[in-house]
């Protein structure tokens, strides 16, 4: 009998405590997962991370010559930089547009990202999927005449990313690149207008402000002679206003169609170049 009384008293106490304060419940337990990656790009590879509506990202991307030049070229820095200046804007939370200019070949590129799926906290949607399109125009003066059509290059990529836990995110991105013109400099050279690739990207978050990321972009199927698979390892630092990315990368470019078809250094040889990106987001709304 004593037991019954104690049980009733415990019940009573429990009820009065639970009535004292409401249970705290998350408003949107099935909401979208935030910050799968820190920015829209790792070194050169695009990510499923998009800008929010009204956000403008200005980005400066640099890299130098390869480090094998040693002290004579100050590990590539003396060989001059390849620089891409780019702006991207969030038209909506799911559609971003962008424009960039790369100093090599004076390539001007236009891009669009469209998010098809957004990973949710409950895992009802386990991945984020973003369709990426980019087309570039090689605008530099050539020794040989090129029509506007012949100057165009394209990229289509389907980026599939997942944040596995607070510390680790991973992405694969099958992609296709196409160049209207490929220039043969050696008669034995194998050239293809269309090249396929499968990008891999990952992020290990050290803390809220720092992470280590990587990207690897092997060519799938036929490749242009003497090209290698691009890879990069990146240290990312979010300062509140800026995201700085410092990296070693094998590719010379920051547009994936060029990384697939123009990378001539093998990261694992090892041979790579130093580079860095500076991102700054402005809220325009």
């Amino acid at each position, binding site marked *: *009998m004593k037991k*019954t*009384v104690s049980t*009733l*008293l415990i*019940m*009573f106490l429990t*009820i*009065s405590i639970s*009535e*004292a*304060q*409401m249970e*705290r*419940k*998350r*408003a*949107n337990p099935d*909401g979208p997962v*935030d*910050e799968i990656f820190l920015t829209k790009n790792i070194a050169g590879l695009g990510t499923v991370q998009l*800008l*929010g*509506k*009204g*956000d403008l990202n200005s980005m400066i991307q640099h890299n130098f010559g390869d480090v094998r030049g040693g002290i004579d070229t100050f590990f590539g820095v003396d060989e001059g930089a390849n620089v891409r200046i780019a702006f991207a804007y*969030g038209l909506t*939370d799911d559609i971003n547009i962008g424009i960039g200019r790369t100093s090599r070949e004076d390539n001007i590129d236009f891009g669009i990202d469209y998010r098809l799926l957004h990973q949710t906290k409950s895992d009802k949607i386990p991945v984020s999927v973003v369709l990426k399109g980019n087309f570039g125009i090689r605008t530099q003066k050539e020794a040989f005449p090129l029509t506007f059509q012949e100057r165009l290059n394209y990229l289509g990529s389907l980026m599939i990313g997942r944040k596995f836990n*607070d510390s680790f995110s991973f992405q694969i991105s099958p992609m296709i690149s196409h160049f209207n013109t490929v220039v043969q400099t050696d008669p034995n050279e194998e050239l293809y207008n269309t090249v396929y690739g499968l990008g891999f990207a990952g992020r290990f978050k050290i803390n*809220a402000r720092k992470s280590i990321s990587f990207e690897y972009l092997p060519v799938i199927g036929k490749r242009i002679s003497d090209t290698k698979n691009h890879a990069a390892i990146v240290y990312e630092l979010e300062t*509140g*206003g800026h995201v700085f990315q410092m990296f070693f990368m094998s590719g010379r470019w920051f547009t994936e169609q060029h990384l697939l078809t123009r990378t001539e250094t093998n990261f694992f040889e090892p041979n790579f170049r130093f580079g860095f990106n500076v991102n700054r*987001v*402005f*809220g*325009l*709304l």
Partner: protein
Amino acid sequence: MKKIILSTLFLLFGFSTGFTQSFKTETGKATFYSKVPLHSFEGVSETLVGLIDLDKGTVDFYIDLETLDTGNGKRDKDMKLTLETEKYPFAEFFGKLVSDFNAESNDVQGVKVKGTFKIHGEEQEIEVDGTLQMTDEGLHVTAGWILNLLDYKIKPPKVLFIKVDENQEIKIDALLKPIEG
């Protein structure tokens, strides 16, 4: 012994049915106003959850901080980082009405509540002035107070290198519906 059980049951029964003076909402509005020299912005959440029990005089409110929308993705992200919302998802207040309120009147009445406000894992005892008004639809609540970020160990974020004012004005506005007893 049977008597004891019966009285306990009676107490329990009496307790659980004594809820006619309770009011609740899950769609209240909470707004904070941030000031930076030459610039100001606000963050709004319309998922403020509140429970007021006039019998016991208790006032219980909380919001999920990730629902605060400043109208700008970059700013929202910075705010979540500053408030560490993954670790501390809620801002919450639990306290008691310390002034009189006449539930029979339909007038707007000034009230004072005293209790604990918790955000960013830090608690402070605060006193808040507000109004209560009994309407046909329920109990209408408004309140406002100044929250000092440093009191809660929140580092004021920067907007273009200029620090956001450490004092943030908070306002709530909610219509709480009666809970059926």
